[in-house]
């Protein structure tokens, strides 16, 4: 069964460093998403991506964040200068259409020291 994959499973970084979280969505899906879950809090929407551009982003998704689909298979989330409060589990998701179910990856746990 096709699945969304994410790498790495756990990333530890120093405050101020750049990180790139990688996702491989399901191959025939057209809509891509990033969510995050800070420990003990709700899963929060970050950004949606369709047709090689951002379709929607939350207020969390400020200028420090960017997304890219560099090669038609990977979907990346970059945080330019990490802060302590960026520590969270980051989930990538993809779906065939905008209103269909989203398939989630296993997540990347980001720890900022």
């Amino acid at each position, binding site marked *: 069964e096709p699945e*969304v994959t994410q790498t790495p499973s756990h990333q530890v970084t120093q405050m101020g460093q750049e990180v790139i979280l990688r996702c491989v969505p399901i191959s025939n899906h057209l*809509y891509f*998403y990033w*969510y995050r879950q800070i420990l003990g809090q*709700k*899963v*929060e*929407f970050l950004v*949606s991506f*369709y047709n090689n551009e951002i*379709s*929607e982003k939350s207020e969390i998704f400020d200028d420090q964040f960017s997304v890219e689909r560099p090669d038609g298979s990977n979907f990346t989330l970059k945080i330019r200068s990490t802060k302590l409060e960026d520590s969270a589990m980051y*989930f990538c*998701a993809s*779906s065939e*259409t*905008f*209103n*269909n*179910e*989203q*398939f*989630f*990856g*296993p*997540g990347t746990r980001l720890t900022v020291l």
Partner: protein
Amino acid sequence: AQSVTQLDSHVSVSEGTPVLLRCNYSSSYSPSLFWYVQHPNKGLQLLLKYTSAATLVKGINGFEAEFKKSETSFHLTKPSAHMSDAAEYFCVVTIDSWGKLQFGAGTQVVVTP
């Protein structure tokens, strides 16, 4: 404004007894509703979805949910809990036409022998 409220943060049941996880939502948009499950150290897995067809929705692993518009509820049930059902369960609603998801806070289910 859209919101999702899971009425129980923690539910403990005995193996073989029924499970009820409660969810209420509010939405000015005609939503799709989902239940996702997250087992420890795993990604989010879709249990079932409601997309304005039958109000009683059957999902995987014996779970089902009933959409009640008058009560704005989408409660999840299973007639007989299994040890493998121990996990965190999220009630989720789409809140716009781009498929942006809003998550409830989650219900942790513990199953005792």
